């Protein structure tokens, strides 16, 4: 069985500055995988390469064994990969429900249709309302997304990401900037919505990483210096030197 997501010798340079220096990574189906590393290690860039936001300089990326290198973001999305953003990236003028409706339309096959009334599409409405419930925003269903609290917008961000039913989910710092209780809620939400899916996430909060991840990759200066279970990563000398020593008490 091919890996859910596989990176082979991926390089990315901006001008002469190399950000990603040959990353090899294989993430199995159903795995929850965390990418950690110090600021500027290239974690977000890695996500941008996988999701098609940036083109790789060299190397290849495979989704379920099929190459997705060089595809447009929407084409990668159609092949079953969805991502969230570190900086909240929603439709601020649309309501919570409408945001989620936008996220499900394509996957339910409506594409660019202009001959159907969207209000009359029962499957779209039910799926969007199910998502509203999953992210716990029932009371905010018809509120314009731009006025939601930060934690609510982060929840909506996750809702939009999983809305299309992709089976590989990339979450970029889903709990950044949250209080402890908000983080606990977010972790429960992520655990809940990624059941049966493959999850890759970038995260700085070590309690989240060690609580959620089956395996962890450590990215330093654009290279993966270690990949393994949380126990293996904790015990890895190179990781402690490069990164963990400074942040984990």
């Amino acid at each position: 069985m091919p890996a859910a997501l596989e990176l082979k010798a991926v390089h990315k340079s901006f001008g002469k500055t190399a950000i990603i220096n040959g990353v090899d990574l294989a993430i199995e189906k159903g795995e929850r995988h965390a990418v950690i590393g110090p600021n500027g290690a290239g974690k977000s860039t890695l996500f941008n390469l996988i999701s098609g936001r940036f083109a790789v300089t060299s190397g290849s990326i495979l989704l379920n064994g099929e190459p997705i290198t060089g595809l447009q973001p929407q084409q990668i999305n159609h092949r079953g990969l969805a991502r969230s953003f570190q900086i909240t990236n929603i439709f601020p003028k649309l309501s919570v429900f409408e945001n989620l409706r936008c996220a499900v339309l394509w996957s339910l096959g409506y594409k660019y249709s202009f001959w159907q009334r969207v209000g009359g599409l029962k499957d779209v409405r039910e799926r969007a309302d199910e998502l509203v419930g999953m992210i716990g925003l029932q009371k905010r269903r018809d509120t314009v997304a731009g006025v939601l609290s930060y934690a609510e917008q982060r929840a909506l961000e996750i809702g939009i990401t999983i809305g299309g039913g992709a089976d590989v989910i990339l979450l970029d710092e889903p709990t950044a900037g949250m209080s402890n209780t908000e983080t606990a809620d977010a972790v429960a939400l992520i655990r809940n919505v990624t059941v049966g899916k493959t999850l890759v996430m970038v995260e700085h909060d070590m309690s989240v990483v060690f609580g959620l991840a089956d395996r962890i990759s450590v990215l330093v200066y654009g290279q993966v210096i270690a990949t393994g279970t949380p126990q293996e990563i904790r015990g890895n000398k190179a990781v402690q030197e490069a990164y963990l020593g400074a942040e984990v008490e």
Partner: protein
Amino acid sequence: MSAMFPWRRLLVWSAMAAVMIVAPLVFTQGFAVSMLSQMGIAIIFALSYNMLLGQTGMLSFGHAVYFGLGAFFAAHALNAIGANTLGWPVSLLPLIGGAAGLVFGVIFGYITTKHSGTPFAMISLGIAEMVAACSLMFPSFFGGEGGISTDRVVGNPVMGVDFGPSIQVYYLIAAWCFVCMIAMFALTQTPLGRMANAVRDNPERARFVGYNPTRVRFFMLSLAGFFAGIAGALEVINFGNVLLMAFIGGIGHFYGPIIGAVLVTFLQSALSNYTQAWLLYFGLFFLVMILFAPGGIASLLTLHKPAVQTRTFGRLLLPYAGAAAAAAILMLGLVALVEMLYHLETKAEQVGTVMSLFGRQMDTATAQPWIVAAGILLVGGVLLVFVARFVRAGWGHVTVAVNRAKGI
């Protein structure tokens, strides 16, 4: 979106239909009927433009292209009907214009929608220039500077309707206008229409939920071209006022462009009867709207919704009346100055420096009327600043009431 039957919407549309049917019976002068016809066309065109600017966030300077090409194809079709080489009812002529608009929307849309934002605006401008240049290069099709003339009274009359009298033309336009309004509104309620809003607000996120923003823009532009072509077929009107209409009405609201189209057409037709300086007033009006109500008239109406809901609108009435009076004085002074200046600059040589203004004779060569007008302008301005305080106080009451209603 509630699953219930939208009674309220039905009421709005019925009211609109009733107004369109009754309007020419109330305003019976020939001038009024032709103006109402223009309004109908302007509404279709402005709404089709709003599909781009308001719904999809595309600032196009080339939308008149689809209107114009729709008009030319329709004109040739009409002449062919007249020459009996084409069997097609005149009442369905707009479909030909629409088809032309759609075809060119597809062609030009394919080129222009690869870009968005400012590059799109610039390329759309380029296409408009290109088509304008073509109109002089291919006189056999475009009729050169004279254009092509047509006769609408062709084909067989259906139940006595031959589109000779302007009232019949009005009802044809009104019917098309109504159908187009409903069609364009319905479009906003489809998956494409909703994704157009999503692309407008955040094109990047739209990509990551599976939609290609370029494709969404392309479809919206093609369909907008279709409706613009219908408007073009209904009548060749002045170019260039589309952008203005969308702004004055309010680009974020579906009904906005309708308000704008009606108002602009009215200003154009009515104001130009009274003064040569109407373009200046028109420009000033546009400027004031952009400065003080950038969301357009529709947004001004929306702004007052909470005041009406909390029953505090009464608090605003008196301050508004005061502000209106002050603004009227200000405008009186301004209009007097502008009219005297126009008279002095453009007419004084032929008819002398004496002119009649607001029913009074005045000599624009003397200082007195200038001083009086400037004085009125100044008094109006000072009053307006003074009254603004009360308007703010009134809004203070409204805000308190709104917050109380929200439980804050």
